[in-house]
């Protein structure tokens, strides 16, 4: 039925085999003075329409770099050394810049952590939102302004009409993030990538923004990639989780499975390190040691120096993503033990 009203989708792709967006065995390298930093080492994930994939990881795990590759905004000297990113079956990485440009914003859009530095301080926010319509859809200024005010209403900016001519610094942090979201969804993208969208915000504002993203996603059936380090936010909104560590996905599973019984020692460590009521007064379970230096990766499994399940095999063999049953995958040689302990 034609209930899903896509205004922008004139050429409806129809029932295409495969997911909306696929990242396939992606490798990204940054040459540095001290050697090559392998920020992403064979990451694969896929996103379906209307679903939320949370990419969870600490700083330096490669979660943002992967997103930058999808958007085509990877900074020099980083470059993709292998792998594909397919959007509706087409490989984005072999396209010319001219072919990619119309996809950005129209099909795939992104919001960033720091809204203040992502907005241009010398233009009014209304102008910046309207610019999306002028440039991508060739609307006149008046039409674009009308559309921009609609978008500001849609992200629930109070008194949108009166604030069209205000500058970014005149808004609070939460309001700025709403403006960023308005710009990102202005052209009705199929995929929205949110890179730590609420990290800089207070909890009450975070709840507002996550609620807004959730509603917008439901209205327009977008696929959402949520990049975060916050296990709480993930538990609230995600359908699937990909946990990243040192440039690899170490566990990939539906959200309920991961919290019930993690199948990778790193995920298990992260979940256990959350303070819980019944553990008050006791030591928190901390993961020992530090995340690895990307220039000097440990041999075998990158997590082995910090892992309580370590055996000799872990120091020599890099674990593949084992099939753990259902749609779950874990990159740990000893996933059976880990999952049994968690139960």
């Amino acid at each position: 039925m034609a209930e899903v009203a896509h205004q922008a989708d004139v050429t409806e792709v129809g029932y295409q085999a495969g997911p909306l967006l696929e990242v396939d065995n992606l490798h990204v390298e940054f040459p540095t003075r001290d050697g090559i930093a392998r920020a992403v080492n064979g990451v694969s994930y896929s996103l379906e329409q209307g679903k939320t994939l949370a990419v969870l990881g600490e700083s330096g795990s490669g979660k943002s770099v992967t997103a930058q590759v999808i958007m085509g905004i990877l900074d020099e000297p980083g470059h993709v050394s292998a792998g594909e990113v397919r959007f509706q079956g087409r490989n984005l990485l072999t396209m010319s810049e001219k072919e990619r440009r119309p996809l950005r914003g129209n099909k795939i859009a992104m919001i960033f952590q720091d809204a203040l530095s992502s907005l241009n301080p010398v233009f009014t926010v209304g102008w910046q939102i309207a610019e999306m319509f002028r440039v991508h859809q060739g609307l006149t200024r008046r039409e674009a302004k009308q559309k921009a005010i609609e978008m500001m209403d849609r992200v629930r900016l109070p008194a949108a009409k009166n604030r069209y001519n205000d500058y970014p610094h005149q808004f609070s942090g939460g309001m700025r993030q709403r403006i960023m979201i308005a710009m990102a969804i202005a052209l009705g993208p199929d995929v929205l990538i949110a890179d730590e969208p609420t990290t800089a915000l207070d909890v009450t504002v975070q709840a507002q923004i996550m609620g807004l993203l959730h509603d917008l996603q439901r209205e327009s059936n977008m696929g959402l990639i949520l990049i975060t380090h916050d296990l709480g936010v993930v538990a609230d909104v995600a359908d699937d989780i990909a946990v990243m560590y040192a440039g690899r996905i170490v566990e990939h599973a539906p959200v309920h499975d991961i919290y019930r019984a993690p199948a990778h020692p790193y995920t298990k460590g992260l979940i256990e390190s959350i303070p819980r009521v019944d553990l008050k007064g006791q030591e928190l379970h901390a993961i020992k040691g530090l995340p690895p230096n990307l220039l000097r990766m440990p041999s075998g499994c990158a997590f082995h120096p910090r892992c309580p399940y370590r055996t000799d095999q872990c120091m020599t063999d890099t674990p593949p993503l084992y099939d753990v049953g259902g749609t779950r995958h874990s990159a740990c040689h000893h996933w059976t033990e880990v999952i049994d302990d968690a139960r």
Partner: protein
Amino acid sequence: MTHDEPVLQVRDLVKHFPLTQGVVFKRRIGEIKAVDGVSFDLNRGETLGIVGESGCGKSTLAKLMMALERPTAGQILFEGTDITQLKGKTLKAMRRKVQMVMQDPYTSLNPRMTVGDIVGEPFQIHPEVAPKGSRKQKVRELLDVVGLDPDHINRYPHQFSGGQRQRIGIARGLALRPDVIVCDEPVSALDVSIQAQVINLLEGLQDEFNLSYIFIAHDLSIVRHIADRVAVMYLGKLVEVGSDAEIYESPTHPYTQALLSAVPVPDPEGRESRERITLQGDPPSPANPPSGCSFRTRCWKAQDVCASEVPELEPRAAAPHPSRCHFAEVHDVVHAS
């Protein structure tokens, strides 16, 4: 831990910053009421958690307790002496007793000083604590206490990770054997897997040295874990004070309830049915707070009395612990127990 004698007593503390306009003739056009009448006690060996959103005055409160800012009014009694009146030598001696751990381990350590110099600098300012010959040994001991390798004494901050730098900051805070450590967001800049390590370290040190902590944070689950008592702050005022169980299991102030319900629960079970109070809008400006109760503009319980009368921070019939709300009532929002 002994919880009887207060080591720090804060009484009706007020700090207003002037707002001025004009370049040549500065006119005072108003004031930012950053801290507006805050009172609490801190006992020996106790951790008082202070939570609130950005701009509520938490960090100004920390600076006042460090005597880095002079209050507009009110008293801060450290072991019975009002530190806001101290000057010169006596002030310097007092500073030994109250130390601070800062939020950002990247900017709070001088990049051109070695770790030994950073941790040993307090001994230069207060030479009576450690005679010159013993200082290097003391610094090595401190590094050992916070879980760093004493042989790294000659390294520079950039050679350490974020969590290790925060340990350096903690070692510096410990150097003068203070009674009170003010921790201003000590783990919020750290990665999740490292936060637990630093929290464990802080708790271990507290038991070892019988320290009192003022623990300022916006992460409510960490505050619950470490704090004995929790104070919730909104627009320069404490709106609710109680033990960790009182605040988290039976919050009575609408703001506390909203704050708790906004915290994402790290468990997807039952996420559709969870109770959520979503506050509308942003906190008002502390330059122009609403009349009466400062939370009334975002409160779903607000009535006429809230606009005219400022509620006192006191226990009420339906609210056994102090709460600054005319209609305070116990309501367990998170069902955490």
